[in-house]
């Protein structure tokens, strides 16, 4: 026991110490800012080679071709960005950011509640604005995130946050916009540690589907009932799915599961549906298009799902689906490489999309999916000023070098603990 306590003490001292190194949130935009001369990648597919972009009080006030428009910039803080690249802030969908600090340490895992049906648990209230991971994401251009619970059959409700804020209320950008559900798999993956090597049919498939069906039927009845005598928190949380105020995110990988999961939700009267995962979505692209189902690709830098699959299938899937008329969002499952979001889009560009289209998969498309497209996702007048300025091509590690970033017009500090440690040891070695 003594040892346990000392461990806890040590851990808290260490963590406290480190959290102190998370940069302070930025203060409000004081005066209008103009960025001149940048190559502006608007996020909606358009590029302005020599752009003039201004924003004030956190909102974009002008997005124009500098060769055409002349504006008086007096009173503006002017950032000359000649030849640099301006992008809308990137949006990381489907992430445990702020709910998880160190995967192997249980005390830092807050993304998966016990039990199978948890629509009522809300990621936003566990979101840790002081996570050390946040600065590493901002450093590469990620400014908004959909904080998403995982696990169980219905994992809980996700919310969108801006990656700067004193507390979760401060950071919140869209509350409880969606509920996340893992659909039943027709096939079970092998438990390799038991020596299994074959993916096999799930013998309990139908029973599991019936169980979910019961839950949704009950939720629908509850929603229809108006004000039931006994309040059921789970059923309350589900209401939004039937009136279109919440999106149902369905996780499915295999072609059959994708179709059955989506058809199930439609039959249940769910208004807004998004597919997550979608490893075999290329086999049902027409179905997704016809039903206008957006797809969140949970990982681009992954291996093909079978030996026979095209070796570059995960890389080109975004392009294949986009070309088939499906709205694609690129995301990342886990945290370890979430900061590489721009490079996932870069890969999509290398494998079939043009770069502006690829950018859209991590800006405007997620904004639309999250219902925040009127405020974020592209550089357009009237939207919130979430902007990144990079010296080179943001989607390529050869060019990605974020020099300035703005969230709601506030210029944020891009450095974090990693930069601090770098400087510390660089200086040490330089002095030697």
């Amino acid at each position, binding site marked *: 026991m003594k040892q346990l306590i000392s461990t806890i003490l040590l851990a808290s001292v260490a963590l406290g110490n*480190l959290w102190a190194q998370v940069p302070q949130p930025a203060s409000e935009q004081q005066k209008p800012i103009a960025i001149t001369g940048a190559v502006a990648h608007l996020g909606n597919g358009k590029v302005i080679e020599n752009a003039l972009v201004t924003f004030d009080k956190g909102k974009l006030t002008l997005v124009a071709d500098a060769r055409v428009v002349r504006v008086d910039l007096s009173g503006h803080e002017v950032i000359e960005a000649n030849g640099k690249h301006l992008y809308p802030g990137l949006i990381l969908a489907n992430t445990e950011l702020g709910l998880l*600090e*160190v*995967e*192997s*340490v249980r005390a830092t895992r807050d993304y998966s509640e016990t039990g199978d049906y948890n629509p009522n648990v809300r990621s936003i209230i566990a979101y840790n604005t002081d996570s*050390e*991971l946040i600065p590493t994401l901002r450093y590469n251009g990620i400014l908004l995130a959909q904080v998403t619970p995982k696990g169980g059959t219905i994992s809980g409700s996700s919310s969108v946050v801006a990656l700067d804020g004193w507390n979760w209320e401060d950071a919140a950008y869209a509350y409880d916009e969606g509920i996340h559900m893992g659909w039943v798999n027709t*096939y079970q*993956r*092998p*438990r*390799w*540690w*038991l*020596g299994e*090597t*074959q*993916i*096999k*049919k799930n013998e309990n498939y139908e029973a599991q589907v019936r169980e979910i069906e019961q839950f949704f039927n009950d939720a629908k009845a509850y929603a229809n009932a108006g004000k039931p005598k006994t309040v059921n928190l789970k059923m309350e949380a589900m209401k939004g799915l039937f009136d279109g105020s919440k999106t149902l995110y369905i996780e499915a990988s*295999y*072609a*059959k599961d994708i179709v059955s999961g989506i058809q199930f939700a439609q039959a249940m009267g769910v208004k807004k549906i998004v597919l997550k995962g979608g490893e*075999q979505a290329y*086999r049902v692209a027409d179905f997704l298009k016809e039903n206008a189902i957006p797809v969140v690709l949970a990982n681009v*830098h*992954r*291996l*093909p799902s*079978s*030996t*026979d699959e*095209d*070796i*570059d299938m995960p890389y080109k899937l975004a392009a294949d689906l986009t070309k088939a008329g499906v709205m694609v969002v690129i995301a990342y499952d886990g*945290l*370890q*490489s979430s*900061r*590489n979001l721009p*490079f996932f889009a*870069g*890969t999509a*560009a*290398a494998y079939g999309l043009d770069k502006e289209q690829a950018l859209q998969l991590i800006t405007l498309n997620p904004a639309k999916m999250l219902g925040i497209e009127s405020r974020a996702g592209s550089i357009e007048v009237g939207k919130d000023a979430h902007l990144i300025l990079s010296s080179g091509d943001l*989607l*390529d*590690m*050869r060019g*990605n*070098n974020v020099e300035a970033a703005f969230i709601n017009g506030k210029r944020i500090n891009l450095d974090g603990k*990693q930069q601090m*440690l*770098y400087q510390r*040891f*660089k200086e040490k*070695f330089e002095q*030697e």
Partner: protein
Amino acid sequence: MSKRLYTVCKVALLLLTLSIGAFAQETFPANGVKDSRLQVYAFTNATIYVDYQTVLQNATLIIKEGKVEQVGAGIAIPKEAIVTDLKGKTIYPSFVDPYSQYGIPAVKAERASWGGQPQLDTKTSGPFNWNEAVKAEYNAYTEFTVNPKEAENLRKAGFGAVNTFRADGLVRGSSALVSLASDRDQNVVLNERTAAHFSLDKGSSRQSYPSSMMGYIALIRQTYLDAQWYKNGGNKTFNDQSLESFNRNQSLPSIFDASDKLNLLRAAKIGSEFGVNYIIKGGGDEYQRINDVKATKASLIIPVNFPDAYDVEDPYDAMMVSLADLKHWELAPTNPSVLASNGVAFAFTASGLKDPSQYLSNIRKAVKAGLDEKTALKAMTATPAQFLRSDNTVGALRKGMLANFVVTNGNLFEDDTKIYQNWVQGKPYVLAEINEIDLSGKYNLMVGNTSYLLEISGKPGSPSAKVKVNDTTELKSTFKMSQDLLSLSFDADKEGNGKIRLSGWMVGKDLKGNGQLVNGEWINWTATYAEALKAEEKKEEKKEEEKKEELGKVIYPFTAFGNETLPKSELILIKNATIWTNEAQGIVTETDVLLKDGKISQIGKNLSSAGARVIDGTGKHLTAGIIDEHTHIAATSINDVQSVSAEVRMGDVIDSEDIDIYRQLAGGVVAGQILHGSANAIGGQSALVKYRWGLAPEQLKINGADGFIKCALGENVKQSNWGDGNTIRYPQTRMGVEQVFVDAFTRAQEYEKEWNAYNALPAKTKAATAAPRRDLELETLLEILRKKRFISCHSYVQSEINMLMKVAERFDFRINTFTHILEGYKLADKMAEHGVAASTFADWWAYKMEVREAIPYNAALMNGEGVVTAINSDDAEMARRLNQEAAKTVKYGGVSEEEAWKMVTLNPAKMLHLDNRMGSIKVGKDADVVLWSDNPLSIYAKAEKTIIDGAVYFDIEQEQAKRTALEQEKARLIQKMLDVKKAGGPTQRPAMRQKHMFHCEDVIYHSHAENLD
């Protein structure tokens, strides 16, 4: 009663009586009066296969007291013989299965529960081996008991004797040759210790070590050495009856269970190390690597468990079946003929079949697929007997051998040939009626006063009947024949109002008997033979001339993206490319490179070479191929679990069939160090391989490369994240980790001293002194101390990094490489001073406590301090983007592009001591180069050609054609399977093999896994 029917009855009667008593059971008291019989039989006028190659026509077989007395044509028949006329019948020796578990109780294996503690010690009581998986002391005869039901099934399949063993452990002890007579155990055990058995499956042992394929091999290897040592004096120090038995069993034939082609090669390799010619039980996939299998010169035991077709009607379900499984379904029946035509000696086994009755039918399939009948029969009889050194007992019908034989109505390998009887040790077991009566014909049937037309058709023994009234109206009927009685029932009228039931017997060609009408009235009936059936009515199916079946080709490796022909080294001239030389001249543009005889032959402008394949490199970049210092692909297993596992070798478990090899070629990777995992302070020995896709495991290894070994520090070694059960294996702290190293190297020094002392003895004294025990673990550690093997050490935090450098310095050697080394930047100066290289990740972190202070500037800082720095993968996916990972060192820390590129090419080559032949574009170095579509550090760059030793192993231009061919081949096989299903053939559910992607933290431990990364 007809004479024929009488004979049948006699045989049936014999069966009853013989089950009472048989051969010499001198010691058993009789309960009643003594009832010994003469037991002499003569079988005349038969076609007799005396052995697989000697056939006698019209011959006689005489057996006496369970053994063959005489066989030949025109021999005298003893008066006391019971004579059976087998005219038109054929006698074959009963089959012998060299690989059976008949009569052996099943092994109970406990499954360890999650979170339980590891079992470090053996739980076997008695003076046996330290490791439970070594069960050399086991003898199958001690547990064997006749199992009448199983015996019956095997006899029905044609077997007369089997070699039976217990399938448990790596060293399984001895087997016994037993006959399949249903008799006392004392009578059926023909040889109580036939063969020694081995496997690559640890079986029921729950002891932690070994837990991996390379651990299994290492333990078998060490056991051979221990047994030698035990024999030569070790037995004076303690008692180990496993080793005692191991030595005793070495005089027996050794049968090694290898479940597939790669394990077969592994088993043969172990055998060659110890001068043992194993008889290897294969997996039936030998055709997939036939040249390598042939080269082992091993004798094989081959299963005939050809897979059923998959049910591929649903196209989505069909996606779950891999090309390899589809192709194996088609080609598996060709395996025996491929083995035969390559001169491989093999015996068949029924092992792996759901039902032994499939044995003969599947061998028939193999014969249809090209296996000649003589070889097939040999593999069923003579070869297994010879393997078991029992060819004077079973497998043929020469004088003095066991009277084990089957009686058929013709050629064993034809589909409609039936086995009627299987005689085992001179006892008859009737499987089907031998004298089947042909009743076919048209009869006039009179039932009481009503007349009908009766037509009997079908083969002898399986008749079917039609009853017609008024010549045309057919009445529903059933007809049965058993022994000499027949019964016929049919509807009384067309509408089916009641049934007329008849019972009767044969009188000459006619039938007669009694029966009951619908109303219960008893009547007499007769059926008078009228005429034979017309030809078409006999429904003799004309054998369609079987078309030569079209088969797909074997591909190497036998998986998607395998090649029908292996890439060959070519004369290649790459023109006008940007060359990243990694040498003093740096990056040069518009330059040509000539590859010749597997080497870089010339670099310069305007080169030409007659006959060279010219590749236009305009606008493209040519670099040395990427070398991955830290990979876990292309290996069957990764971690063993002893704190010091230096004896295990990744080179033993290379998986040449791993699709990730091909995927990484597509990412420009040409070579890698396959490292042991990080479950232990001192892990196993590395394998350095080039990704020569299609070649066999041994051919992937880089010849002449130095030896390397994995070490590890920190959380994995301490088992910090392995659950609450794993808190007893030493070490559990970083303090303990250091002590493991110090102790290991101290023991190695002592080992050296012990051997030096022994070797220094005067010849005479030495001859009289027992040699010290050879210990492969300590020998490996000694190689490290002697600077002949080099450490690549998994590490994270600065304290432990510092520690290991100090330990090495104390033992006067240097650590070669720290891998992962995420806090290397804190000690870069000390590392430079020690001379250790660093192989790290570009930006991985956040997955466990010890990576809290990992920063993506690590590589840049270490490189800046003069540490030779590389970026590695440890991950099959990231490995195909190592070029991009290298680029991150430019982003984080401002390394120059040229230096960044070296981090995945020249620098890892240096770490692996391969920079004299790999890692840069320099005349004389290996032609391991990659042509990129763009600057190789860009995310938009694609490897267009990946060349190893001058051979093109990946070509983006061929890729589309390959995919199309793959889809077409799958489509062809799916159509073929659909035809099988349509024709009513058996099918199985689709299932997909999925390979686990290993990281260095993956452990199969104690029956459960840890996958922490």
